[in-house]
């Protein structure tokens, strides 16, 4: 009996921290295996590159925790960044503000469709995915929007406080804020309750509509920020390439992190580690010249491995 208990404990530990464990293992592997890995430049590159997928994944975790899914995040990134880039070109802060509001409004729309009109999240966000990508292309005439704003570009490309990139601080703030929202406030419990059993949650007096709309809106806002980060590095926003396949990476990061895909507790730290893990694989493959198909297969293996560990816990319950 005691032996069996020990095994369950181990599994529970693995289940909870699998993303972190895999990330650390891969990190250590890279420190030894990859040329020039241990350096400030790699640190900088890593945080600049991971910030987008991490931001979007945070939002995705909330949405997935409600039992939903948002496949419009890539399009939201494109629409937000193209509009904002146009705002910079025409020196109109109003347009930049409008770009945030618009993307968040689309998030609210998705949330309303899902919670009020019982449209499947996949269907609702699929529609928005086309709408927002289409708008981005329409507004820009399907051409990339290039702007010159040396100060802005320098702010995001030059490290601050010596050696740390701005992205690092943006990321820390975002993770901490979402973590507190979920774990230290009632919101997290409500999301979890809704994700586990929407009817019961509603019967307990939780304003479920509000909760769901909030989650999709936050995802919209985070997608906008991610789109901006993608555009600002190269001072140009391309309506077709920005955010492509972002939903896939964000869903993968969320699953690796341990948020159940059919709803439940959003594991924010897990998601963060999941995003870090995926980006580290990309980076490792770049730095060691591993071909792209192999990179994708590696990512798939990691997703499977993580799902396997999460699955064990579930079955033993």
């Amino acid at each position, binding site marked *: 009996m005691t032996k069996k208990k020990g095994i369950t404990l181990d599994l529970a530990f693995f289940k909870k921290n699998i993303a972190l464990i895999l990330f650390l293992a891969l990190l250590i592997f890279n420190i030894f295996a990859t040329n020039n*890995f241990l350096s400030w430049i790699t640190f900088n590159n890593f945080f*600049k590159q991971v910030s987008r997928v991490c931001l979007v994944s945070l939002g995705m975790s909330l949405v997935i925790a409600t039992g939903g899914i948002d496949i419009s995040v890539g399009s939201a990134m494109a629409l937000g960044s193209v509009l904002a880039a146009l705002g910079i070109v025409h020196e109109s802060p109003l347009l930049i503000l409008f770009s945030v509001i618009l993307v968040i409004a689309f998030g609210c729309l998705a949330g309303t469709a899902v919670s009020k009109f019982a449209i499947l999240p996949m269907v609702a966000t699929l529609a928005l995915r086309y709408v927002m990508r289409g708008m981005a292309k329409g507004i820009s005439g399907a051409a990339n929007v290039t702007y010159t704003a040396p100060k802005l570009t320098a702010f995001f490309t030059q490290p601050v406080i010596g050696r740390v990139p701005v992205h690092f601080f943006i990321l820390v703030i975002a993770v901490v804020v979402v973590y507190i929202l979920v774990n230290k406030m009632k919101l997290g419990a409500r999301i979890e309750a809704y994700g586990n059993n929407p009817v019961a949650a509603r019967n307990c007096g939780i304003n479920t509509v509000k909760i769901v709309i909030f989650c999709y809106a936050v995802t919209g806002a985070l997608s906008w920020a991610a789109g901006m980060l993608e555009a600002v590095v190269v001072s140009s926003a391309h309506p077709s390439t920005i955010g492509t396949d972002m939903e896939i990476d964000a869903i993968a990061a969320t699953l690796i992190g341990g948020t159940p895909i059919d709803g439940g507790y959003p594991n924010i730290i897990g998601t963060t580690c999941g995003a870090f893990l995926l980006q580290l694989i990309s980076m490792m*493959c770049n730095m060691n010249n591993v071909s792209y198909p192999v990179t994708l297969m590696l990512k798939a293996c990691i997703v499977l491995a993580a799902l396997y560990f999460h699955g064990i816990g579930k079955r033993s319950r």
Partner: protein
Amino acid sequence: MKKVLALILSLTMICSLTACGGASMEGENPAPEAETEAPAEDTDAQEPAEDAEPASGDATEWVWPSKEELHVGYAQADLASTWRTVESEDMQRVADERGYKITIVNAEGDTEQQISDVESLLAQGCNVIVITAVDGDAIQPALDKCKEKGVPVIMKARGSNGVPGVDYVTFFSSDFVAEGRYAGEWIAKACADKETIKVAEIQGILGGTDVRDRSGGFHEVADKEGNFDFVVEQTANFSRTEAQEVAANVLQSTGGEIDAFYCHNDEMALGVSLACQSAGLKVNEDVYIVGVDGMYETFDAIKDGTISATITCTPKFAEQVFDGIEAGMAGETLETFYAIEDVPVDATNVEENYDLGF
């Protein structure tokens, strides 16, 4: 229900992660600017001449109009990139200059739409049809309609998988292999003093003919030269940001020891340029960056010295298409395939070739 959905989603995701680099669940084409030009997925369309020797009896009798009666109908595939927009504008411009009547329609990437577009062009009395096919196979019913009436069809930029001479007259397209070859030759020449040339190839969305051929042509030259060392072969999916990141990563791992970057499009070349600059490398001194496309932005970057060279893949070849139509009207026999001659552009000839840009 939820479990089924969850299962489907996980499967979809895993499949997307493994199977497809580019367009996973995309209905729209995520590819940027100029890379999708010319026969998109149809591998046969580039070399129609070889396998297509129709028995003379099968050859369609095309009815060419007289110069005065010429009414060209142009069925454009979509206007979802600058390249295509410029392509349509160029057709309009040349038709106006030469005083021909032209009607341009746009299928918005929809095959069915394109077939009915061609039908309506025929109904409007167009007597020469130019098509940039959405899909090389699915366009066949439209070609059959034209064949019935003997209306000559010219494929432009994106071909048909039908038989030239029978299903259509001829095909005008950029030659991606030649573009790759030019890039290889440019780098070989620029690095002539080096014993081995350390090359980084930044590829587009894997799976397209554009990527296959631009890479193939480049490797042809590399094999011939024998001193190309491919230290990096990574994809950046035609995206400027991704290219910037990939380049930053490989510059770090190789310690900046790369002589030349060859990028499958200009967007990526511009991203690589940013990464090189922030890694403290001087373009044209420490490293050469070569792209393909010939965007105005790249031409300006060549002038500024932040990009070394680009190989044009111009959307402006309406002149050649109309030359072909005029030759057909004059009773000449047309070849089944015309490759559009592209030009390597660097600081020495950027001014004179600026108009090829888009």
